[in-house]
Every structure is written in structure tokens, then in C-alpha cells.
């Protein structure tokens, strides 16, 4: 009748803009509706199929399809961060790498005499005592006498020892005393040492200066190794005390080392070389270091167009104990790289022409999350001491040096100095050698954590070298070659050159093909999504729309149905309690309230319009279809019907909700 205008408006609103909850009153109805209307394929069959077996089969198939999709998609996700490798070859003008050349002997022995005389005497004495070897009787006598007079306590502190392994007693080089050794014994060549052998073993002992019971004995299977190691230990102590400028003077100058130079068909000289002081190799010279801003490049391959140098190796001026081989060491590296010449240098023979053909390869890895490498090294918590671009070697060395400064209080001689530290020598740090050996052992056993912290660099350049050697100078050309080279060397050299003092070196590009090996992401998001789409489509003809549907139906709608049910039940219970309190009239009403609802469900089960198949009904379902109503317009398309039907479905539902509202 005459309802309030406000109510009219809301009713109207509800009609035109109905607030629609789930489209079915119960969960099973919702599921049924979903299965019939969903865009995925399997679900529909479950509802439409007649017969238990067939339905079961369809349920199984649908579930297995879902399982397959999940499995495959998980697989796709896991493989998302994989990389594919591509190799490109480009023929082009190539930058010539930096070539660092060192003499194997770091310092002129004649110039080092004043610093090393004591050490050499000591070494010679050791050789005489242990092996009965002497260079010339008179010389050794004199040196022994001298030693007796000057006697350095540092050598006494760490003397060479002869170990009689049987009884674990040692004979001191100086005193000749026998004593028992305590503490641990370290064998440098551990597996070779045979305790039953009658051979005596040479070694040396390092003790903790603060705690003299802490000693480590280093033994070597061969006296050659023992003496070299021992010599090097003392040598580093001595060198650490000499300032850098003096050391540079003691080593070879560019004029000393380089006799001739030829690059790319043109003559070059020492101005093309940059000096670089290496702690273990003395003065090294880098060709094309890029320090003056220009990097030379080659546009022609072949030995004529590379670098050709003749090196002067002054064999007579070699330190007999420190280095035992003759020649030069070279390393081919990038201008930004630090030359780790002691680790990866190539040795050059004297009296020979060494031709080194290069082949250039550039590699690039993908950084996180594809692999664990670093682009610039900025994310590594180790300070780069080398002033060059990051590499794994630099990181490891820096890491060790840092650990050394932290635990021993001074820096190891072979590596650059960190800020505020100074090199170890046994005047200031009497304890350093023991500390160093301990630390080094830890480092090798990966106990310092350096290997874990340091990552490899993502991109690196590599020059693959093919080395071959020819005799040089040839017997017939030897004569004039040596004469002319001696003339080249000029007046500074007053003796004629010997061919064992010379080394000819050719470094050139074999070809100008640059190989670039790079990793590319194998998957992009687009490809991942299309793979997902392919999987979903293949097994269930599903898409994102289906996913949204699933979310809608299974989460939002079913939740709201459950909530509504709960709400109704709660309401009913509340009403019932109220009625029970007020009178018995309530129970009748509750019953009448329930009856229409059941009827609704039943009716919907039969002619719920949404149940009707829209495509290809099976025979059985076709029989159950309600007859299509006559349409007033033959050309109005089917969609109109279903939309209409939907409308009716909701209007039928409306009283239900309206009823709720009235309560």
C-alpha cells in the first residue's frame, strides 16, 4: 500500500542496482553453478555427466589436470632464473693488452751485496755444515770467521735445523747441540717424508716469541726446498726494511732490461713502458699500460704486427739462492687488472725466440640472482688494496693481508700495504713469522673465511696464449746479431753480449676474432607467463579469468554464503529464544519460514535456468531441457535469454533476502 517514499526508492534501487551476493543460497548450489558456468573445461563434465563411474572418472581427470598444472608451473617457476649462453665472434680492431715483463731475478745481486752479505754467509755455512759443500775453501773459511765475529741474533733465532726424525731430536746449525723438539711438526712435503728413512731432514723451527713453548717445526723432504724457503723468509725480513725508492734503484732500469722494441711495424722505446714495482720480482715494465690515457690497438694479426722485444737478462748478476732459474716472466693482462705475475706469469727462456700468439675471449656472467658473482666488487666487505679493478685474486690477497694486519700487527711483504700498517720485519715484530705461517696455514685450509667472502668477477677478459720457442739467434746470424745488439746497448756495457743473456719475445694476435661469451636470461617474464598460459590452456583451458573466478567463487562467494547461513542461524536461534520467552506463536512462524526455502532449493534444482547447457548438451541432458519458449523475434540472439534468466534467478532469490531484511 502506501509505503514511505524512502522505502520505495530503496526498493527501486535494489531492483535496478541489486546488491548481489553469491548466486546460490547453499554451497552445493554454488558449486553446481560454478561448475556449469565456469570457463575451465573439466568441471562442467563432472556436473553434466550421468552415472557414478563417469562422474568419478571426470573428477579424477580434473584433479589430475589441476595437479599437472601445479607441478608444471612450479617447474617453470623454479627454472625461471636460468641463463642461456650465447657466443658471438666479431672480427674487429682489437685493443692490445698490457704486457708486463719482469726479470726473474728481482734485484741486481751486486747492488744487494751490502744488505744480503750476512744472510748469504749464513746460507753458505749451512750448506757446508749439512752437505759438506763449499764453493771455494778459502772463501768459506773467511766467511765462517766473519760470522763468528758479527753473528746476528736473528739468524740464531730461526736457524736451520737437521732433524733426526727417529729420535725426534734436532741438531742446531750454530751450536751443534742436540735437543729434543717439542710442539707440532709441520712437513711441507708431508706425504713424501718417510720416518723410517735414514736420511736426515732439514727444516726450521718457528716459535711464538711470547710463549716459547708454542713452536712449529717446518721440515722439507729436500734440502733444496728447505734452504730456499728459509732464505726467502730472511730475505723478506731484510727487504721489508728497505724503502721503496731504494729498492727501485736496486732493481733493473728500463734501459737495462729492454734492448729493442718494435710494435705494429713501428719502433718503440722505454717511453712506451711503465714501471711497476713488484715486491717479489723487483722492477717490472708494463707495455701499453694505458697510463697516459691511450690504449694501443692492432688492426692486423700476425707476428709482424705485435710486440717484439729483445730483453737483456744479466745472468751473471743473479741471486744464487733466491732464484734458481734464468729468464724473464711475462703476463698478458687487461689495463685495469693487477698483474699477478708470481701466480700466473709465463716464463721466457734465454737464447730463444718465444712467440706468443694470443686469442682474445671476453666473458660475461649474469649477476644475482642468476649466479653469485660481483660486477664491481663494491658489495664485497673486503677493502681492495691494489688500486686496480676487482678480481678474485685481489680479493683473496687483500683479505689475507687484512687478517695478517689484524692478528700479527704488521703486513706481509709480498702484498700492498693497507692504510696505517707497515711491513713486517723482525726488528719491530719478532713474532711475525710464526704468526704468518700459522695464518697462512689457516688461509690454505679455508679457515679464515676469505674464500667464502670473495666472489668471482662477473666479466673478465682472457687472452689464451699459444707459446712456441725457436732457437735465436741462429748459428749463422749469431755473430752479427750479438755485435749489433752490443752496439745498441751502447757504451754502458763494456763487455760483449752473450746469447744466454738475451731473450727474444714476440706477443701478437693470432687473429682479430674476438669471442664474446655472454650469459643471457633464458626466461623473461613474458615468456614465463606465456608458458603458464600454455600449461593452463593445455590441461584445462583455463586463464587468469578462471583464476579470478575461482577466487570469487571459492573464497568470496562461499564465504559470504557461509556467513549468511551463520547469520540466519544465529538470528533464528535468537528469535527462537525470544519466542520461547514470549510465547509459542514463534515456532509456527519459524516453520513457515523454513518451508519456502526448501521449496526454493528444490525448484532451483530442476529448473534453475543457469543449469541449462549452453553448448552441446548430451543426449540425456537434452531430454531434461525445458522447452525453449517461443520468441517474439526470431532474430534475437540467445544471450538475451540467459541474461533474462539470470534476472529471474535473482528475483526468485530476492524474497529470501528481503525476508532477511524484514526480520
Amino acid at each position, binding site marked *: 500500500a502506501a509505503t514511505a517514499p524512502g522505502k520505495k526508492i530503496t526498493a527501486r534501487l535494489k531492483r535496478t542496482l541489486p546488491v*548481489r551476493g553469491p548466486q546460490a543460497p547453499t554451497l552445493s548450489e554454488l558449486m553446481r553453478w560454478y561448475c556449469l558456468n565456469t570457463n575451465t573445461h573439466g568441471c562442467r563434465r563432472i556436473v553434466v555427466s550421468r552415472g557414478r563411474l563417469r562422474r568419478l572418472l571426470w573428477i579424477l581427470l580434473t584433479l589430475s589436470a589441476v595437479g599437472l598444472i601445479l607441478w608444471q608451473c612450479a617447474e617453470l617457476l623454479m627454472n625461471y632464473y636460468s641463463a642461456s649462453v650465447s657466443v658471438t665472434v666479431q*672480427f674487429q680492431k682489437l685493443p692490445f693488452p698490457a704486457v708486463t715483463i719482469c726479470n726473474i731475478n728481482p734485484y741486481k745481486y751486486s747492488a744487494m751485496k751490502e744488505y744480503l752479505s750476512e744472510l748469504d754467509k749464513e746460507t753458505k755455512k749451512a750448506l757446508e755444515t749439512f752437505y759438506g759443500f763449499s764453493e771455494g775453501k778459502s772463501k768459506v773459511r773467511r766467511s765462517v770467521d766473519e760470522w763468528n765475529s758479527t753473528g746476528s741474533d736473528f739468524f740464531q733465532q730461526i736457524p736451520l735445523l737437521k732433524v733426526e726424525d727417529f729420535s725426534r731430536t734436532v741438531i742446531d746449525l750454530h751450536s751443534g747441540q742436540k735437543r729434543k723438539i717439542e710442539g707440532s711438526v709441520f712437513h711441507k712435503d708431508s706425504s713424501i717424508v718417510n720416518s723410517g728413512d735414514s736420511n736426515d731432514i732439514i727444516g726450521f723451527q718457528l716459535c711464538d716469541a711470547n710463549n716459547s713453548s708454542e713452536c712449529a717445526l717446518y721440515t722439507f723432504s729436500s734440502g733444496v726446498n728447505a734452504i730456499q724457503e728459509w732464505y726467502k723468509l730472511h730475505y723478506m725480513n731484510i727487504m721489508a726494511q728497505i724503502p721503496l725508492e731504494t729498492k727501485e734503484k736496486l732493481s733493473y732500469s728500463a734501459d737495462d732490461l729492454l734492448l729493442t722494441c718494435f710494435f705494429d711495424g713501428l719502433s718503440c722505446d722505454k717511453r712506451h713502458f711503465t714501471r711497476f714495482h713488484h715486491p717479489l720480482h723487483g722492477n717490472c715494465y708494463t707495455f701499453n699500460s694505458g697510463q697516459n690515457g691511450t690504449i694501443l690497438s692492432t688492426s692486423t694479426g700476425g707476428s709482424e704486427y705485435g710486440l717484439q722485444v729483445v730483453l737483456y737478462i744479466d745472468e751473471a748478476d743473479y741471486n744464487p739462492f733466491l732464484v734458481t732459474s734464468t729468464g724473464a716472466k711475462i703476463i698478458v693482462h687487461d689495463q685495469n687488472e693487477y698483474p699477478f705475475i708470481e701466480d700466473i706469469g709465463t716464463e721466457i727462456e734465454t737464447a730463444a725466440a718465444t712467440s706468443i700468439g694470443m686469442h682474445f675471449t671476453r666473458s660475461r656472467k649474469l649477476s644475482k640472482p642468476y649466479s653469485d658473482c660481483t660486477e664491481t666488487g663494491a658489495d664485497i666487505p673486503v677493502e681492495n688494496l691494489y688500486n686496480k679493478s676487482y678480481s678474485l685474486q685481489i680479493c683473496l690477497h687483500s683479505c689475507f693481508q687484512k687478517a695478517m694486519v689484524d692478528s700479527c700487527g704488521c703486513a706481509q711483504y709480498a702484498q700492498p700495504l693497507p692504510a696505517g700498517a707497515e711491513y713486517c720485519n723482525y726488528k719491530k715484530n719478532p713474532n711475525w713469522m710464526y704468526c704468518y705461517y700459522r695464518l697462512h696455514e689457516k688461509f690454505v685450509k679455508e679457515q679464515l673465511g676469505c674464500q667464502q667472502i670473495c666472489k668471482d668477477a662477473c666479466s673478465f677478459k682472457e687472452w689464451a696464449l699459444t707459446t712456441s720457442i725457436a*732457437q735465436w739467434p741462429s748459428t749463422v746470424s749469431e755473430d752479427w746479431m750479438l755485435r749489433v745488439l752490443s752496439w745498441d746497448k751502447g757504451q754502458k756495457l763494456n763487455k760483449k753480449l752473450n746469447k744466454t743473456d738475451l731473450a727474444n719475445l714476440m706477443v701478437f694476435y693470432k687473429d682479430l676474432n674476438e669471442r664474446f661469451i655472454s650469459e643471457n636470461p633464458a626466461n623473461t617474464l613474458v615468456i614465463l607467463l606465456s608458458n603458464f598460459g*600454455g600449461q593452463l590452456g593445455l590441461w584445462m583451458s583455463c586463464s587468469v579469468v578462471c583464476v579470478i573466478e575461482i577466487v570469487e567463487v571459492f573464497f568470496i562467494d562461499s564465504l559470504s554464503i557461509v556467513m549468511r547461513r551463520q547469520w540466519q542461524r544465529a538470528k533464528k536461534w535468537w528469535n527462537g529464544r525470544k519466542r520461547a520467552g514470549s510465547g509459542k506463536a514463534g515456532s509456527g512462524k519459524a516453520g513457515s519460514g523454513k518451508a519456502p526455502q526448501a521449496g526454493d532449493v528444490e525448484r532451483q534444482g530442476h529448473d534453475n535456468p543457469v543449469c541449462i547447457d549452453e553448448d552441446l548438451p548430451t543426449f540425456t541432458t537434452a531430454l531434461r531441457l525445458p522447452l525453449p519458449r517461443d520468441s517474439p523475434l526470431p532474430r534475437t540472439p540467445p544471450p538475451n535469454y540467459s541474461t533474462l534468466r*539470470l534476472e529471474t534467478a535473482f528475483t526468485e532469490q530476492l524474497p529470501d533476502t528481503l525476508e532477511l531484511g524484514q526480520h
Partner: protein
Amino acid sequence: MNLKKYLVRALHRLQKGPGYTYKELLVWYCDNTNTHGPKRIIKEGPKKKFIWFFLTLLFASLVFWQWGILINTYLSYNVTSSLSIGFKTMKFPAVTVCNANPFKYSEVKHLLQELDRLIEAALERILQPTPGNSSENVSPPLNLQLWNQIPLVLIDEHDKDNPVILDIFETNQTAGGNETAAGNETDASNGTAGGNQSSCSHQGSDNCTYRNFTSAAQAVTEWYILQSTSILSRVPLQERIRMGYQAEDMILACLYGAEPCNYKNFTQIYHPDHGNCYIFNWGMDEEALNSSNPGAEFGLKLILDISQQDYIPYLSSAAGARLMLHQQKSFPFLKDQGIYAMAGTETSIGVLVDELERMGYPYSDCTVNGSDVPVQNLYSQYNTSYSIQACLRSCFQNHMVEICGCGHYMFPLPEGVNYCNNEDNPGWAYCYSSLRSSIKQRQICIDSCKETCNDTQYKMTISMADWPSEASEDWIFHILSYERDMSTNVTLDRNGIIKLNIYFQEYNYRTISESAATTIVWLLSSLGGQFGFWMGGSVLCLIEFGEIIIDSLWITIINVIGWCKGLKRRRAQARYPDAPPTVSELVEAHTNLGFQQEAVGALPRDEALPPEPGTPPPNYDSLRVQPLDVLGPDSDAE
């Protein structure tokens, strides 16, 4: 007849239109399409309708965006590389062996005699600048003609701005004027600069360049090479081959696997740098040999003699054999890829074949057989395949011929051109050195040459040992000497003998082959995947959509035609302000003349006029529609 009927029907069908409105069409499409979104739009309530409409639009745009990316990826022609390593039976590489020295000195001595004496005298001058040297008095007068073309000079650079240039033979023609020059050289040898070499073009002394060398050794070698090149280039090829090392002298022993081989298994080739070179297993006439076992036992073993005593002293200072491994039917570029083997040693070379197989255009810019490179390949006269080295050298030689008018001795000749020599082309050395140092020329060649698609490299692991050992030295030399020279005297020595082992390593190939990363199949499946992922669509959905577009176009056209006709009619009506007479009126007008309006006098003319303008065309059309309706279902059924 049938066809005509059919066409008429079709025309009528077209004129009639699809028979529904835009809205109907759209609703029908949304409900019946197989793509997932649109169905929801029409099935849901208004709020959800809006959400679904928005979602569908979003997904559609996503699909198109990603399709764009995919097509872009496809058109960038990426490749993926696959790597395989292992051992398989492979063709043994061709092995080229040369002596580092091109000719036997004993054979070419008569040609180089003058030059040698000249250089000896020059060296004497440089090295012993003190006057009163007696050596010149004994020697016959020098041929200074060679010298004057390209003299060696000393440049004293003590004073940077005014370098003092001294000819080593100070006065030009007379040999007697030496003493004055010698005094000057003492100063020069104190100077920082060493030997220098100057070359002038023949046009005049203005066009001189000095090639500076910091080392006299280098200057002398370069100068000697330049001069000897000019001398030897005049010698005919047959003669040059005869002057080089013969196969039977050089290759003493050969063993391939278990089979013996000898110098006859080698193909002779004349290499300008190294004289006679011998190629094993080149594959030109015979089938290439296969090796199916790794290890030195199954490789090639050679014993060579380089007879170092017979070297030309000033030409090559390094002594040894030069060898190179390369592919069958390719030219050996020893200067680039060759390696040395030292005399008195056994050199073992383990080989790994490193292959790179690339896809051609459009994936990468490489050439399959060099036919598309704009440089005439001069090495094709050797019947060898294209390589980038061949292209670069041909390019250089072509430029040389173009600019200097003669070909360089180190490279093959184009047809109808001669090699450069000092007599015919006095300025060639200047021309050559300026061309050689020209960066522009190099860049042109680099740009015009393309690398080959199949790049094969032989990675070598080289190791050396002394050979023969002291204990075995005697008998080995004896046997080898006997076999070669049939003499019981030892004619070989440590300085000349070389042993070579060339064999496959345990892994003898590493092949990187490229394949297209994105094929058309990949593209289609990715496109399908994207469409399926966002909208559950397929190609059929696209066709559906196309159908809808056609239908709506159809409707539009019909509407537009209808509207135009309407416009015309309205215009026609506008011309006759009164409403057009209806049919009944007209009929009546014909039958009942009395009903007509009176227009006295104009009656006979009026009689003809009224019917024509009175029947407007649209009316007919609409009339026609009615009977055509009967045809409608018929055509639909078709």
C-alpha cells in the same frame, strides 16, 4: 543462370544487412565467444559488470602489449649456443711444415752477394767507427746503386729540434771518402737514436720519409728484407722453388699412426715468407685422413732437418721449423697462426679442435663461402677456401696494385700485374711503407671483409723435450744421414734436427653450435600462451572477433547508406514543399481527371510532369524489402 541467381541473392542479402543491431551483436558476441572475459560482463550485475569490463580491457591490453614484446624478440633473431665436448673420429688437421729460412744460402748466394757485402761494410762502419780499418782495402768496390735507393742513416737526436742525419757511407760514389764519415759516426753512436732507414719516393727528394728504429739490429733486418725482397721478386717462381728446401732433404721420417709415410705424402706449396712449405693431409687430391684414436701413438710423427748452417744470415735470425695446423683446403697463414719448433728438441702437440658453427644472415653477419664479400680473393688461385686472412691480404694487395702499380712479393698477384722491384718501380718501398702504416687502409679492409660462419681453431698443448738424447744421438744421426745422403758420414747435427708429434687429445673436439633461439613455432606457442593465460583465447577467438568486426562494419555501411538515402529523400522533399502524392492519389489522378487541380492552359505539359518527381526512389527500396523477406531464410540457409 544459377550463378546469376546466386549473385542476385547475395546482393540482396548484402543490401539487407545482418539483421540485428549493434547492441544485439555485442551481447550475442559476449555470450558466445570463447574468450573468457566478455561472458562475465553480460552475466553479472552492474557493479561486477563494470569490474569485469575493466578487467577484460586490462587483460586485452596486456595481451597486446606482451605480443608486441614477443614479436620484437622474434625479430631480433637471437641465437642460443649449445656446447658439446668429446671424442669422435675426426679429420686429422692439415699440417704445414716450413723452414723458418726461405732459401738455401748456398743457392741464393750469387744473387745476394752484392747486398751481403754492402751490409757487412755498413755494419763494419757502425760497429767499428775507429778510422784506419783495413777491411775495405781488401774488398772489391761496393755496388752503391742498391744503397742509394734506400740508404741506412744514423740520426743523432741529442738535439731534439735539429736531428743530425748521417749517411753511413757519407760520400756518395767514391769508396775512398770513408774516413771523414767515420769520424762523424763516433758522435752518432753516442746518441740516443740507433740505426735508421730512409726511403724516398722516386718523384723527388722532397717525398722522403725516415723510418726510425731505436735498435740497429732491427733497422738492419728490415732494410735487408726490403732489399732482398726486391732482388728475389725478379727471380721466376720455378727458380725460387728450386732454391728452397726440397721435401726429400727436409722431411727425414714420417709416420702416421702405424702407417709409414714419406715426403711424397706432402703437397708442396710456395710460401713467400718461408719458401717451400709442405702440407700433410691437405685433402686437395685425395681424401682427408681420419684419426679415430687419441694419443701420440696414433698421430703424426715427423723428423725434420732444417740445416741451420745454410741459413741466410741477415734474413731470419730465429732458427727452427715453422708449422701450422689448419683445415683441409685452406691456405696456411704461417705468419699469423704458425708456431715454431726448436731444433734439437722433440715437440709434442696435443690438438683440440675448437669449432664454432654459426647461423648466417639474419642471425649474424658472416659469410659461408666468401662469395658475398666485395674483395677479389687472390688466394683462390691455390684452390683454397675463403678465410678472413685471405680476404685481408687480398684487400691489401688490391690496394697496393691500385696505388703503387705493382704487387707486393708476400702476396699472390692479381692477373696482369708484376711484383714490385727496385728497377721497374723505384718508388715502391716508399709507397708500400706508407700504405702499410695507413690506418685508413686497414680499416677499409676490416670493414669489407667478413668472417666465415664456421670458425675452426686448433687449440694446441705444446710441450718440449730434448731430442735426441745424448745416449741415442750417435746412432740416430747415423741412420738418418745414411737414409738421406747414402753416406756413412754424419751429415746432420743437433742444430738442424727436429722431431714433431702431432696427435689428438683425449677430448678432441669442442663444438659450439648456434641455433635460432626464437623460431616461428616458438613465437606461435608463446603468443598462444599469452592469449590463453590472460583471456583463455585462441586463434578461433580472433576469427570470432573478426567476424564481429565485419558484421558491425556491415551494419554501419547499411546504416550509412540508409542515412544517405534518407538525406537525399529529404532534399528531394525539400524541393517539393508539398508532400509527394501517394500511389492512390496518383492512381486517382490518372483515372479521375476531374479531381485534379485546375491549372488552365498548362494542362498538357502538366500531364507529363507530375508522376516522375512524385515517386521518390526510397519508396521503391522499402517496397522491395518486403518481397525479399521471403528470400531471407533461404539465403540464411546457404
